[in-house]
């Protein structure tokens, strides 16, 4: 079934973001194979999209992986301590760029919120998973999710699974 944003489109966005901003090589972000392990100290970065189509682009990983992302983005030494501010800024910006590119795929004009980072993203009642990509960045698990916020009277029309 066709959805508002296709799986392959989101994968290409994520790969381009990681290659351009972090790795210089698209091959370092790949689909995760096998069962996804439970995240140790999970951390989520997300941006909300509002407008005719409302939803969220969300990245979930382990805090240790978030620290590695921040070190790569901020050109820090491998053993340099990542502060909470570093983590929020760097991981949040990755979500911001992924979310902005997802927004550009939508058929309607919308507005992008500012990125947020927390151990858990706030739950939106009735939100549906439009796409969920289980990925491996440098071998470490990372999940990219696109959620649709469906008005209560239209639940079941976004082609996703209610969360």
């Amino acid at each position, binding site marked *: 079934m066709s959805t508002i944003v296709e799986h392959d489109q989101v994968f290409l966005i994520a790969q*381009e*973001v990681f*290659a*351009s*901003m972090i790795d210089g090589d698209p091959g370092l972000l790949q689909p995760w194979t096998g069962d996804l392990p439970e995240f140790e100290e999970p951390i989520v970065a997300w941006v909300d999209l509002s407008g005719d189509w409302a939803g969220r682009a969300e990245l979930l990983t382990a805090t240790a992986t978030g620290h590695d992302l*921040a070190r790569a*983005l*901020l*050109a820090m030494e491998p053993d340099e301590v990542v502060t909470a501010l570093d983590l929020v*800024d*760097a991981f*949040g*910006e990755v979500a*911001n*760029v992924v*979310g*902005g*590119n997802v*927004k*550009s795929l939508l058929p309607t*004009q919308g507005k*992008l*919120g*500012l*990125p947020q980072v927390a151990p858990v993203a706030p739950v939106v009642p009735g939100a549906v998973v439009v796409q969920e990509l289980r990925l491996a960045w440098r071998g470490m698990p990372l999940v990219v999710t696109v959620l649709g916020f469906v008005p209560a009277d239209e639940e079941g029309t976004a082609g996703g699974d209610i969360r």
Partner: protein
Amino acid sequence: MRALVIDDSRTMRRIVAGILEGLGFETEGAEHGRAALDLLEGGLDVQLCCVDWNMPVMDGLEFVTEVRARRDWRHITMMMVTTEGEQGQIVRALAAGAHEYLIKPFTPDAVRGKLDLLGLLPIEELA
């Protein structure tokens, strides 16, 4: 040449400034449009502003509009550097007075290409 990088993300300011410095620019940073205006009003002279769109306090579109309203800042070239990739947004930014538009994510070569189009590459880079 000097450039002002305006983005609420320190990460993105570092990435953009790093590319510009590699091309021979001196760089300054500001975390939103209002902070950037404060720097310019305080006498900072720049040839280029790289401007994010979505920022708290003052967004990039407002900043571009404010700069374009000032005759003494007409020499400043403004390049939007943003995730806002839809055609309608690009048209809005250019209509407000931005000279170029670069969509995140970007490569260093993409920045260099835009600066080349704008005639802002230092001589040694062109050689």
